[in-house]
């Protein structure tokens, strides 16, 4: 098989032009924006190949059961079925996982969550697949599931996995443990299970090499090389025999960081010797990927009468679900952000990430910090009330600055404009429209199209949330990124394995190359594993890490170019620079277009960008475990119908610490999108499980904000370039999600004068 068999669907970014213009700092439109809006963009679900088969997955209907018997013979009797595979057929390692490999490719003896894969089939048509799955007989001995994470902590439930029910416990002990009061505020905060709900469903196409010596997988994912490592291990193949190519990705938000259909698709292709495609539908997607951790956080803040925090006590309990995924890292992110963006010298924190028979939890935008922020921001408002100052003042009094220490002892050595963010947010205009608007459109009221309320039923509240988010990976992980740049005839070609999930890296690449090299045209090569790793598109890290790699490679290429030009014109290379699209001599003797200077030559350089090393935490949770930090402030205005418990988020104002906005249009998109996800978590998004059974795995009942639910967003980009960041730019993807949720909830509390301590806030939480 070759790429040409795939037609235009293959290699979505192969030869893509990264826009035609735009340098760092310009607002550059995405090259894939119009095709996505018009529906012509090829997502990985649109992939096809000559003679391909469809694959499908049989999943457990039980959250916890012993598999007594699997009889696949019925599936084989159906015309068109080409393969039926179970755990017995896994050629290599039986399990996978990002941090510990504890999740089976197929359950063999025990199923541990509702929807765990048990078998898969390949057939000539999706309907044939459906019938084949229905013909597989699985006899289960149903067991009582562990669904209460407290039972995992207290040891009262027998282990549901050989690795035990506690994925990780970590404490943070810092400073004077005896400090009490004089002001004490306390609260317990709960968060339900949010789904990433990307619109482009999981899909992959696997193409076997002749003789089954290897496999090519076209897939929507977040980290090609990590996928390859896990897939190769499960297939029992050297990594070199597995090539991954990025299929068009329709959003990720953390849900594509774990393996879902990758190994199954490759196994079916290798078994049948034919291309195989698997594509989940929405219901299967809800079962097939990890979600944000449901979490319970207890906090007790001790403060002076001036409201300055003196000590924080906290306990975090993250429900990791059936398999470990990234729970141990999510836990560390949560507990190390206990204090929020505030100064705090003394702390006593205990955190657990535990295993249950609920859906596996893992990465989602904000990665543990969302849970911490909902709690610490609730606490800040309680503290403000206890001290008798307003929510802005309490936050200003405690605002972290560069050089302050986290409760892990780590010095925050990044730009940390917390007070400025709060002040700039406060200075943004409040909504000019009264409740219901000057046009009295009922659509503007809580209840929207349902016309449930009149203006007199509505009260308006204002709430605040301020956040800190670590950027890049933590705890001694070297999540480097690689880029290769070729310059010839005035055109730069850039090769990288950085996954574009919609965040906008493909525009940044062109902006960097045009700025550093003075080229007009930038070609992006196929995004695949034919170059070193880029690390994951997560943790707000790709502009910093892969941007750093592209920038580094471009600078190496530029040095070589200057050497060539200097030699040709008998100048010193150090006195050359790029001015627009020209190479110029700073002494004024030479100006030639880059296109002319590079005619007939080829310069190629590869660069790996590594961030500063980080450390593991010690047993008291001390250590420089994080790479860098970004900050954000949110102010929410929410209209509430107290009697029916319905809400309308009217406006969110935000100032965000972006370092430098390399593509302001794209930054605004990240902020608006992150806020939409934060609003959803605040007031409607929750995947419900009852005794481990998923109740609402559809978009009919898992509600995402619509246009009518999305507030106006007013933005101030605070640009203080970070000295540690390549190009000064901080990651911007996660902060909008971190503290927009607590801001919305604070506004509802403000409207009602009532404590709310759980998200999403349900109508019954408001009106009863």
């Amino acid at each position: 098989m070759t790429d040409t068999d795939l037609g235009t669907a293959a290699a979505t970014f192969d030869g893509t032009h990264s826009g035609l213009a735009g340098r760092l700092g310009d607002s550059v439109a995405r090259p894939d924006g119009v095709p996505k809006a018009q529906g012509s963009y090829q997502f990985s679900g649109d992939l096809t190949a000559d003679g391909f088969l469809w694959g499908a997955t049989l999943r457990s209907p039980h959250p916890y059961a012993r598999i007594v018997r699997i009889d696949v013979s019925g599936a084989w009797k159906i015309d068109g079925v080409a393969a039926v595979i179970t755990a017995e057929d896994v050629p290599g390692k039986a399990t996978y996982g990002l941090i510990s490999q504890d999740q089976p490719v197929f359950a063999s003896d025990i199923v541990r969550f509702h929807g765990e894969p048990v078998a898969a089939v390949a057939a000539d048509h999706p309907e044939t697949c459906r019938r084949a799955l229905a013909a597989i007989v699985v006899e289960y001995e149903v067991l009582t599931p562990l669904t209460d994470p407290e039972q995992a902590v207290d040891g009262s439930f027998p282990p549901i996995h050989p690795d035990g029910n506690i994925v990780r416990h970590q404490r943070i002990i810092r400073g004077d443990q005896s400090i009490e009061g004089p002001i004490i505020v306390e609260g317990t905060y709960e968060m339900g299970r949010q789904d990433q709900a990307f619109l482009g469903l999981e899909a992959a196409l696997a193409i076997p090499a002749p003789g089954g010596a290897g496999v090519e997988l076209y897939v929507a994912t977040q980290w090609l090389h990590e996928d390859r490592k896990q897939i190769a291990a499960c297939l029992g193949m050297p990594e070199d025999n597995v090539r991954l190519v990025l299929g068009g990705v329709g959003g990720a938000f953390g849900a594509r960081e774990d393996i879902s259909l990758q190994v199954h698709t490759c196994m079916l292709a290798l078994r049948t010797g034919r291309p195989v495609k698997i594509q989940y539908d929405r219901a299967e997607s809800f079962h097939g990927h990890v979600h944000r951790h449901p979490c319970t956080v207890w906090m007790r803040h001790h403060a002076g009468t001036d409201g300055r925090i003196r000590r924080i006590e906290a306990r975090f309990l993250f429900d990791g679900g059936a398999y470990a995924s990234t729970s141990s890292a999510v836990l560390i992110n949560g507990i190390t952000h206990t204090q929020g963006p505030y100064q705090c010298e003394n702390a006593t924190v205990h955190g657990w990430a535990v295993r249950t028979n609920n859906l596996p939890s893992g990465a989602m935008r904000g990665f543990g910090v969302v849970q911490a922020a909902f709690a610490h921001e609730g606490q800040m408002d309680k503290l403000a009330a206890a001290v008798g100052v307003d929510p802005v003042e309490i936050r200003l009094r405690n605002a972290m600055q560069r050089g302050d220490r986290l409760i892990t002892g780590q010095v925050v050595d990044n730009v940390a404009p917390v007070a400025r963010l709060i002040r700039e947010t406060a200075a943004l205009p409040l909504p000019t429209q009264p409740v219901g608007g000057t046009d009295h459109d009922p659509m503007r009221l809580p209840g929207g199209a349902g016309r449930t309320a009149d203006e007199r039923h509505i009260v308006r509240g204002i709430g605040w949330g301020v956040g800190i988010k670590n950027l890049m990976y933590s705890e001694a992980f070297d999540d480097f990124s690689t880029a290769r740049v070729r310059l010839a005839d005035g055109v730069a070609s850039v090769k990288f394995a950085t996954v574009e999930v919609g965040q906008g890296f493909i525009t940044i690449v062109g902006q960097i190359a045009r700025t550093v090299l003075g080229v007009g045209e930038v070609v992006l090569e196929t995004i695949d594993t034919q170059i070193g790793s880029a690390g994951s598109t997560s943790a707000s890290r790709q502009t910093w890490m892969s941007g750093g790699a592209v920038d580094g490679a471009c600078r190496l290429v530029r040095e070589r170019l200057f050497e060539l030009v200097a030699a040709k014109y008998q100048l010193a290379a150090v006195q050359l620079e790029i001015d627009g699209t020209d190479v110029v001599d700073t002494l004024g003797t030479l100006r030639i277009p880059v296109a002319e200077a590079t005619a007939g030559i080829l310069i190629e350089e590869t660069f790996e960008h590594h961030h500063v090393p980080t450390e593991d935490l010690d047993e008291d949770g001390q250590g420089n475990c994080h790479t860098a930090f970004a900050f954000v402030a949110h102010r929410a205005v929410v209209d509430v119908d107290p009697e029916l418990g319905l809400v309308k988020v009217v406006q969110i104002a935000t100032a965000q610490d972006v370092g430098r906005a390399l593509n302001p249009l794209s930054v605004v998109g990240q902020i608006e999108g992150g806020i939409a996800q934060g609003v959803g978590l605040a007031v409607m998004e929750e995947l419900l499980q009852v005794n481990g059974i998923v109740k609402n795995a559809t978009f009919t009942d898992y509600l995402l904000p619509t246009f009518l639910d999305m507030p106006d967003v007013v933005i101030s980009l605070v640009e203080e370039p970070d000295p540690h960041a390549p190009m000064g730019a901080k990651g911007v993807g996660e902060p909008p999600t971190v503290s927009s949720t607590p801001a919305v909830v604070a506004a509802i509390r403000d409207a009602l004068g009532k404590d709310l301590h759980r998200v999403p806030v349900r109508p019954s939480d408001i009106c009863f």
Partner: protein
Amino acid sequence: MSVIVPTTLAEALAALADSPSATVVAGGTDVMVEVNFGHRSVSDVVMVNRVAELRTWRRDADVLHLGAGVTWSEIEASPIAEWVPALAQAARTVGSPQIRHAGTVGGNLGTCSPAGDGLPVLAALDAVVHLASADSTRSLSFAEYMVGPKRTARRPGELITGVTLPIVDGWQGYSKVGVRNAMVIATASVALVVDAGSVRLALGSVGPTILRCPEAEVFAANNVDFTSRVASSEVVAQFAELARAAARPIDDHRSTAVYRRHAVGVLASRLLRRAFPNE
């Protein structure tokens, strides 16, 4: 599997006579969801979206006849919206614009979910549902037609041809609670119709069928001033209480019985106040 695409009512009825248990599809906005979730296996299909007789409406004096194939986007627009504003308000809450362009009033009746957005209005207006088969026609009041959750009096071989509604002079309105400001399934819904000395109240999503509230209706009719549009706050409160008492809600993953009962009371009181704005 067969798919018949008739273009006249006679052809459609003939097709149903040949295959009485065929699945009738107009907009497909309910059927396709059930098919996609594997809740319905479709053998024979009769597509009625090209049957002109079903896609038209007409007004005869104070009666509006809607063909079963009239879409929600037609109902939410003028002139139907001026004649039956409560139905137009309900129409606006049906799904997204795309769904409203495809989904029909006949489909709402065919599925007959207690959460069907248009049904409380049809119940409150005492709408008449028209059914036809190859050899006969009959008409049922809405209350006769809907017999349970997603259960109707429609017989195999029968097609819903339309629904007849009175055009009333008095105030009418509709409210629906969902946990999102648009495009959401009703947690609870209420339709209120005031007409010639009567008050009619229907509740959705709080019982196995759409529920009328005779006690509340009689109480309101006896205690409001229709001419000067006065209702005391005590009357409004008691009306809400009677609406709550009429509800027969359940707990499910969308909400609780307690909240649903509470919500229909709030909606009933707010609608009554909109109809009778003076205290």
